[in-house]
């Protein structure tokens, strides 16, 4: 169901909702998967992002997202210069990603103090995005909700443990997705919540032995 605010909005830095606002959101999501600001970023642009991205400010929009700027932040225009000042080394290149991808897609590889994360995201129109891959796991996240992302051993009872903790703190789940590369390996868990996850729930979740790489990502859309 379409909302009035989907039509009259978003408030955003131009020139293109898909090439600018959406690109910024992909950067924001990727940043959320680290424990702080990224130190290096390798941004690979695919399809229409590669062809017309520079003229649309896609490079600046993604850099801005990586710095934590939202699509309506005027600093997006100077984000490449601000990234340099902030000590974030970004490289941009064009690529042809294997498999089926939306024409407006970017792969972003970030590092910080030995931590690394690789995200593939697509800008699917009107500033909306879908993140399709996180660290090699196939996912489907829109960023329209605050999200909880973590990796867990593929053992029974993880979802039950997590949902119990969330329920106890009154954190309501909007969507839940678990994806694994193979049976018995590791699985990525993504919970989209109605409200940002509470500090108490985060602490309890970190205490689950099978859970690692836990990140609470704010709503980006």
């Amino acid at each position, binding site marked *: 169901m379409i909302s009035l605010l989907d039509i009259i909005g978003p408030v*955003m830095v131009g020139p293109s909702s898909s090439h600018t606002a959406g690109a910024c959101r992909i950067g924001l999501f990727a940043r959320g998967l680290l424990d702080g600001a990224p130190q290096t970023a390798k941004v690979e642009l695919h399809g229409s992002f590669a062809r017309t991205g520079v003229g649309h400010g896609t490079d600046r929009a993604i850099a801005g997202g990586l710095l934590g700027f939202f699509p309506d932040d005027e600093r997006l225009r100077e984000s490449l210069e601000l990234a340099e000042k902030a000590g974030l080394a970004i490289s941009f290149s064009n690529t042809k990603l294997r498999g089926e991808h939306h024409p407006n897609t970017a792969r972003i590889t970030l590092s910080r103090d030995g931590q690394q994360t690789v995200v593939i995201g697509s800008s699917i129109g009107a500033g909306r995005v879908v993140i399709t891959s996180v660290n090699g796991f196939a996912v489907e996240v829109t960023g329209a909700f605050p999200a909880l992302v973590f990796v867990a051993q593929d053992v029974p009872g993880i979802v039950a443990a997590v949902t119990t903790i969330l329920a106890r703190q009154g954190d309501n789940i909007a969507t839940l997705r678990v994806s694994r590369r193979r049976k018995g390996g590791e699985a990525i868990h993504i919970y989209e919540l109605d409200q940002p996850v509470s500090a108490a729930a985060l602490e309890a979740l970190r205490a689950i032995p099978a859970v690692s790489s836990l990140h609470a990502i704010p709503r980006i859309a």
Partner: protein
Amino acid sequence: MFDALLEAVEQAEREGISLGELALRTEAERGLHSRADVEAALLRALNVMRGAVERGLQGDLRSVSGLVGGDAIMLAHAVGPLKGTVFTDALAAALAVQEVNAAMGVIVAAPTAGGAGVLPGVMLGLAKHHAFSDADLVRALATAGLVGAVVASRASLSGAEGGCQAETGAAAGMAAAAGVELLGGSPSAAMHAVALTMQGTLGLVCDPLGGLVEVPCVYRNATGAAMALAGIEMALAGVRFPIPVDEVIDTMGEIGRTMDVRYRETAGGGLAATPTGRKLAKDRLVQLKKGGG
């Protein structure tokens, strides 16, 4: 929202309220946002639109590629037969917003960034000549949003899917309804303004040079605003378009679905594929990639 504009108009007339009031009530009834939150978001959008018009009319902006900028201020000093009228002020405001957009300034995508100049062009052009309150303008934004929601559900709001008729054409339809409501026309007159406006933008292709939201997008927002003013003027005079508005919207969708891909934001046809269009795009993009301005 609504799947048919006729349905919304009938309900508004039955309840004796405007389309904007109906849109605000309907949105609040969905329960995702309170009415106060929706009005606050629309007021913020209105103020961003005002800021963009003001910024663009300073006249010093150039787009990222350097292809556009500096035209809005010329309209602010128009010398033609329509100088000093709503018409010229609407063109100036529409150009101003699109120049800001092309220069990576802050705008409201309404319904998209590429069509973002039309609605503020018409509404703020009218506001320069009439004493509308913020509440009037917020309600008119809601009217425009209702029309846009119907177009989104029946056809498309994406140039890549439906050509420019789905972006500046839809924006013009939205602006026509907003304008009629601001000027005190009935919901039925607003509906006919949408039909009279959108019949004039049917078939409009999306053919931006180099795929950039610059040429002809900036100018097409001004002509989109002009089309909306034509629709408003005809509808307020009592002109009634013989094809129902929802069928006009469906026609836009049908034309979009069968439109050649060259005319859907790919820069493969239309003005983008002219010898000059290709040359300008190539020159500018090569310079950009070298790190030039």
